[in-house]
């Protein structure tokens, strides 16, 4: 009925050494793909536009990246375990609407923040339950959730764009702390926290174990369902934070708010080097992926290339990154996993 292990590549043991060498070189290529692309990007855009390589522009890029970066961080955890969350974009839209609305009726900022995080966590909890308890493949569950949230946002929006200032002074695009935009500081703080969680805690190790081999993780006594649900809840919380910064940064919520962010966040995770098959990756790599994508979007505009080309470049880089993953895993004769 279901298939777990499918391609067991058989190889004569004589060729093992050279194959290992090739595999190691490819792994090196995979690791250096992103830094290489970033350098190419910087050189090309610096040559093609005078206004690209300036402190001001880079602070712009970093601010613009806030939502993709925050959601990408949470998304990394789910992908680490071989899952995916398609619903993040419209979840952010719905929460952003809520934040803007509550701010419009003069609610206490702390209450707004609590409400946003609560809604985000609730969406994550439902997603996590559907995936872990009801065994619905994460792509199906979150695709359905995404459609529902899109409708919820449309209903709330009700043909009226809702404008709002930041809920706190520090969350606007302009506000800085010792010369660094506060939005950037928030992003960095979240990445440090999630890096610590994934690398230094039992919970983090459990996630890697589940991503590598869920059955083995269960047998080793890890409560896989709770860990998986928790990861979806964490995504929900990062989505809520993104919604709060979005309102502060952009100041208006529309029916389409958030719609395009999910795929960008997934792209950032994959380009960053976290394996979609689970068990391998890190939030810091995702930060590299976010940098690549956001610099691309900014540089392309400054260089005067029509933004129509953006998707093409993102698509090519996703495929290139995963192509190297595929070849490496094949040479390592890993089992091909089917994505949950």
């Amino acid at each position: 009925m279901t298939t777990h292990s499918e391609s067991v590549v058989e190889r004569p043991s004589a060729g093992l050494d050279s194959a290992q060498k090739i595999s190691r070189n490819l792994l090196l290529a995979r690791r250096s793909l992103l830094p290489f692309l970033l350098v190419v990007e910087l050189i090309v855009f610096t040559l093609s536009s005078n206004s690209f390589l300036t402190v001001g522009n880079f602070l712009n890029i970093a601010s613009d990246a806030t939502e993709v970066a925050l959601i990408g961080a949470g998304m990394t955890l789910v992908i680490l375990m071989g899952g995916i969350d398609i619903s993040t974009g419209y979840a952010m839209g719905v929460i952003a609407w809520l934040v803007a609305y509550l701010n419009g009726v003069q609610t206490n900022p702390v209450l707004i923040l609590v409400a946003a995080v609560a809604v985000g966590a609730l969406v994550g909890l439902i997603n996590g339950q559907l995936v872990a308890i009801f065994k619905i493949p994460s792509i199906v569950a979150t695709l359905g959730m995404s459609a529902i949230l899109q409708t919820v946002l449309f209903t709330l929006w009700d043909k009226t764009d809702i404008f709002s200032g930041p809920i706190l002074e520090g969350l606007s695009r302009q506000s800085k702390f010792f010369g660094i935009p506060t939005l950037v500081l928030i992003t960095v703080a979240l990445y440090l926290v999630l890096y610590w969680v994934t690398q230094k805690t039992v919970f983090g190790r459990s996630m890697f174990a589940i991503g590598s081999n869920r059955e083995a993780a269960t047998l080793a006594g890890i409560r896989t369902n709770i860990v998986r649900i928790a990861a979806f809840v964490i995504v929900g919380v990062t989505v809520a934070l993104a919604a709060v910064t979005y309102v502060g940064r952009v100041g208006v919520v529309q029916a389409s708010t958030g719609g395009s962010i999910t795929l960008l966040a997934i792209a950032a995770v994959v380009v960053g080097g976290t394996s979609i098959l689970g068990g391998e990756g890190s939030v810091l790599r995702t930060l590299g992926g976010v940098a690549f994508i956001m610099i691309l979007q900014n540089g392309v505009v400054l260089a005067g290339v029509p933004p129509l080309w953006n998707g093409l470049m993102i698509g090519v880089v996703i495929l290139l990154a995963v192509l190297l993953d595929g070849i490496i895993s094949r040479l390592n004769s890993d089992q091909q996993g089917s994505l949950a």
Partner: protein
Amino acid sequence: MMRLMGDRRIALGILIAIAIVAMGMISPYFLEAGNLLSLMQYSSVVGLLAIGQSLVILGGGGGIDLSVGSMLSLSSITFGLLAVDAGWSPWLAALGAIVAGALLGLFNGVLINVFNMPPLIVTLGTLYLYGSLALVLANGLDINGFDRDGFSILGQSTIFGIPTQVIFVLIPSYAAVAWVMSRTRFGREVYETGSNAIAARISGVNVKWTRIKLYAISGVFSAMGAVVTASWLLNAKSTAGVGQELQAITIAVLGGIVITGGVGRVSGTLLALVLVAVLNSGMALAGVGSTYQIGLLGVVLIVSVLVRHKSAIPSSVP
């Protein structure tokens, strides 16, 4: 397993009957010929995408095709460029678009099966790639001016009150695929591959090649969707397929195609298509906006998988 499949299709049939009666009561206009006609015109494009999606999922190995919408867009632009810029007859250009679709699907299939890349991410990548290529090729504009050689017949005429694209494209497509899947060696190989790839390989099935063909077929159906859209609206849009992948996946899963592969029938997909079309149309008549239909689709998707879970087949879904 077969009995359960029967159940799923019977359940869909009952739901369709209930929906038609309910919609007829909400709006008397629902049962009028004109409305039923436009209902089927709208659904034939997504119906074509859902066939390809069903086949790719049936092939197993995490099979899914997120790029169907973008393949539709890019085939649509290919069609427009051939028919207008190159001056081909629209019918010949349609053939060209279908070849293009097959190549796009083939590219997906080769990346996934030759290079062992996960279908979800490959087709996410090509969703960007093909969608953006369509925009670049068309420079972001629509292409018009191919209303020649009676091309609009396909999308705008009816035969005995039934839209031509339903009679000549949608129904033959479902019939052909249903026949291939149940009566031919290829169909049996797809089910074997989807339910147990190792067993299939041991029994002599070329698993990778079988799956590659499924992705190419999905490309062909996407391109057919593009041709039907072009003939119906008489313009080729570079954003023609945006967002259609969700509907195609939903309809396939609702129709009983199990997401892990190997279980399901395209006749179920067809029934799910009819159900979704009836619901959409009824809601539109009741004055409910199209975005609510998307939400309803989401609910239906999750509930249909939940129900399947409750009726308890695979306890080992990954």
